[in-house]
């Protein structure tokens, strides 16, 4: 197998990172972030593989069985939970952003002119409709 697993991890990682940086859509950014995190899960899990090792479930009466290392799997279970939580918070924020700005495109949100917070000038008191 050689270094195949590492190359796949690198590919996934860079792909995910590229999506996070290059895309302005907040949902696509979350997808990219998930791909990026998944690459790390794959990295950990492939680290635990022992050549000719079987799944780490004890087999009675077979003392010389080679098992794969289960610890990275356990770690990654925790990391997956963290990833799910991050995605949930990120998507919840995206929903709130959609409600507040009527858009999930980063450039449209940033171009949105905030009504003057001081209220001292003649800016309209009602929130204007976005005119993109």
């Amino acid at each position, binding site marked *: 197998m050689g270094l195949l697993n590492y190359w796949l991890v690198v590919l996934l990682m860079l792909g995910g990172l590229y999506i996070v940086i290059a895309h302005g859509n907040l949902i696509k950014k979350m997808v990219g*972030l998930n791909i990026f995190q998944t690459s790390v899960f794959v990295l950990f899990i492939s680290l635990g593989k022992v050549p000719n090792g079987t799944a780490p479930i004890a087999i009675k009466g077979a003392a010389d069985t080679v098992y794969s290392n289960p610890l990275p799997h356990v770690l990654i279970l925790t990391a997956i939970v963290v990833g799910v939580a991050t995605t949930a918070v*990120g998507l919840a924020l995206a929903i*709130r952003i959609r409600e507040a700005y009527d858009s999930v495109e980063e450039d449209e949100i940033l171009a949105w002119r905030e009504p003057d917070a001081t209220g001292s000038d003649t800016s309209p008191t009602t929130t204007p409709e976005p005119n993109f």
Partner: protein
Amino acid sequence: MAPEMSLISTVQAHLPVLPVVTALVAAPLAMLVRRPAMAWLVATAAAVLLLIFSLMLLPATAAGPLSYAVGGWQPPYGIELRVDRLTVIVLLLISVVAVAAMPYARASALVEIAEDKQHLFYSCLLLCLTGLVGMTVTGDAFNVFVFLEISSLSTYALIGMGRQRRALMAAYRYLILGTLGGTFFLIGIGLLYAMTGTLNMADMAMRLEPVRDSRTVLAATAFITVGLGLKLALFPLHAWLPNAYSYAPSAVTVLIAGCATKVAIYLSLRMHYNVLGVDFTGEGMQLAPMLAIFGLVGLIVCSLVALFENNVKRLLAYSSVAQIGYIVLAISLASNTGLTAGIVHLLNHAVVKAGLFMAVGAMVWRCGSDDLQVLAGIGKRMPITSAAFVVGGLALIGVPLTAGFITKWYLVTAAIEQQAWLLVVAILAASIIALGYIGKIIEVAYFRPSPVGAPVGEASPLMLLSMWSLVLMSVALGVWADGTVTLAGQAADVLLGARR
């Protein structure tokens, strides 16, 4: 268990784990009681307990580090909590800022957070504290990641609670960058695990000794440095910080400006010195010059940005990035004096900046805007708050008899010791720029007439209590600096001890 096993001895036996447990148990409790006042009481009680436990750990670690096996599973297989002098300093910092911030949080939540969300606000605040305290006490590398994410996730939610809708975007951006940082850190831990087969930091440090120059370890070092650099807002990686600080509810700004970045710096110290044992002076990866350059550029550039910034909260946020530059510079010197200076500054700056953010938060709350010009004449309209800002500002600049002076003194001493004259010049220059941006606010506050019909009135007593307790502490840390400097010196010994 023996009948004479009293409460005190039980507490003593489990002291290292109690700060984490307290905050973690209080978080759902605050959510369950629902009534805002009750939730606040729970949060305050937890913060006070945190402070008591931290103070109890202070004498307990005088002789040497405390080790605690979670659930009775012995290290290196189980998760170990390890409390040494450096840990105690950071624990004290977190708990002092948390206790001082609680009255302020109550007053600011009343106006900034919807009433039916306030219990969730306190719950998130406690979860954030859990994460910060957990990262500090744990001696297990993967456990660090878990606590890092606990504090990060709750911080994203807290920032998103800000009143302006830009808070949402600030929270989202921090979520993206914070997750990238956390995941980079995880990659680094994975690579180190691949090399050593252990997650216990002390065990890992020992097993890394023979393979220190291998490419895997170097890659791990790079990932961990960048990951933590994102979390601690090291200069080119600080993009999330100004917006997050400016749009978060003001109590949250106080807590994350005081604690969150400081804990990330602590982790960076711990990982680089105690685990990776990075050779800052020798051949191999030139981490020290790299950190020094980022620290130096961040210090000057962000000070200048603060000088020209007209939004007071953003101004303080950029000043925070600049101050992180000081600490990183001090770390990169890798000498005992340098590290002592860095650790003292970690402590002093947290207290000073938390106090300043409280004062500015109260002014913004009164005026309804964070634009500098709106604060004209605030010195007459809110005399007690403005006075707190002036004292805190002087401490930030580094006027003698304040905390800032002590740290700059040690920083300059450390730089002169290594004949790094450029650093001496930069440290002094940045102090002068700080005089500029703090002076700018003071000038507007005291020497400009108030706009007609501007709101008049002091901040609420709870806010003043919080603000002045931190401001007075920053003066006390400047007048009686022996204690903190001695403690920081012992912490520097812990960091350098592994490499003697």
